């Protein structure tokens, strides 16, 4: 085979490889969300004024600059709340292998601010990883945030003075513009977050 034939074969092979690559990149359907629901258009959060675990102000603007997974719970919740935070912490670990610019942080907003002081919620969230924030404050300010997100919570009597708090089990995803971007409904599974979050975070 002379050099001209070699050249033609190499060009043909390059054309095949390029064509295959283009068809995979251009014509393959983008990965689909499995469990998350993305809002048709991200919405602004309501104005609110709460405190983080260090007692510093935490407002709507505090959500800007990071992707956040926001869960509403309380520290005296022995079952569902630690379970959900463990799932979110595991999801973050699973996401380490993904090529994300940054992992989303976890934000626990207390629906029991009467008992959850910044110090108490701070001690609590530390158990679930370094990049986990605990937020609390005045009940009326928590309501401003939850009402805007359609998150429900209400005290419920258990026994005598003892009470629990019924609350939406949803996990809200906020984007780096500080907007309500998507949500995950319960029950929560770490693998579902690990699958859907890269899709959500790559298509802002």
């Amino acid at each position, binding site marked *: 085979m002379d050099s001209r034939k070699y050249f033609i074969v190499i060009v043909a092979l390059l054309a095949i490889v390029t064509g295959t690559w283009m068809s995979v990149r251009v014509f393959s359907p983008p990965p689909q969300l499995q469990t998350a629901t993305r809002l048709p258009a991200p919405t602004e959060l309501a104005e609110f004024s709460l405190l983080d675990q260090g007692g510093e102000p935490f407002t709507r603007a505090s959500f800007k600059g990071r992707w956040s997974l926001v869960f509403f719970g309380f520290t005296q919740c022995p079952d569902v709340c630690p379970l959900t935070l463990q799932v979110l912490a595991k999801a973050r670990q699973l996401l380490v292998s993904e090529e994300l610019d940054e992992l989303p942080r976890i934000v626990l907003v207390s629906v029991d601010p009467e008992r959850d002081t910044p110090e108490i919620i701070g001690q609590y969230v530390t158990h679930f990883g370094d990049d986990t924030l605990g937020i609390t404050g005045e009940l009326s300010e928590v309501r401003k945030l939850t009402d805007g997100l359609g998150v429900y919570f209400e005290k419920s009597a258990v*026994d005598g003075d003892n009470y629990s708090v019924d609350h939406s089990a949803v996990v809200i995803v906020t984007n780096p513009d500080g907007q309500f971007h998507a949500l995950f409904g319960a029950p929560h599974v770490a693998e579902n977050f690990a699958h859907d979050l890269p899709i959500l975070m790559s298509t802002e």
Partner: protein
Amino acid sequence: MMRRLLVSLVLLVLAACASEQAAMTAENVHIPQPVPGVSMGAAYLTLTNNSDQEISITRVSSPNLTSVEMHESTLQAGVSRMAKLQKVAIAPRQSVVFEPGAKHLMLRYPAQMPNQITLQFFADDALLLSIDTILED
């Protein structure tokens, strides 16, 4: 002679009792370490009724804990709720599972965290089962 016969009879009865399975047994007991600084925690296990009669657990207590209550977490229309259970009935030859996100024991810990925990299950005042376990690491 009479004394030897009596001792043999007692040993026989004891052996029969030992070989008989308890009316209620527990498996897969696990108590996760409570989150530091929080006095509440949960315990999970499977209880099996080995008898031919229904068993109703009306109370759980522990000498190592401030209190133990039977609770149930439910998810209704996206809302997580927790309710105290006054009793848990186990049908004959059936099991009831206490697991995350469902029925569970809610444990209230004293300031001094115990290393070992004894859980006692009662039907009214009758002790059904006592188990000794330790907190998970």
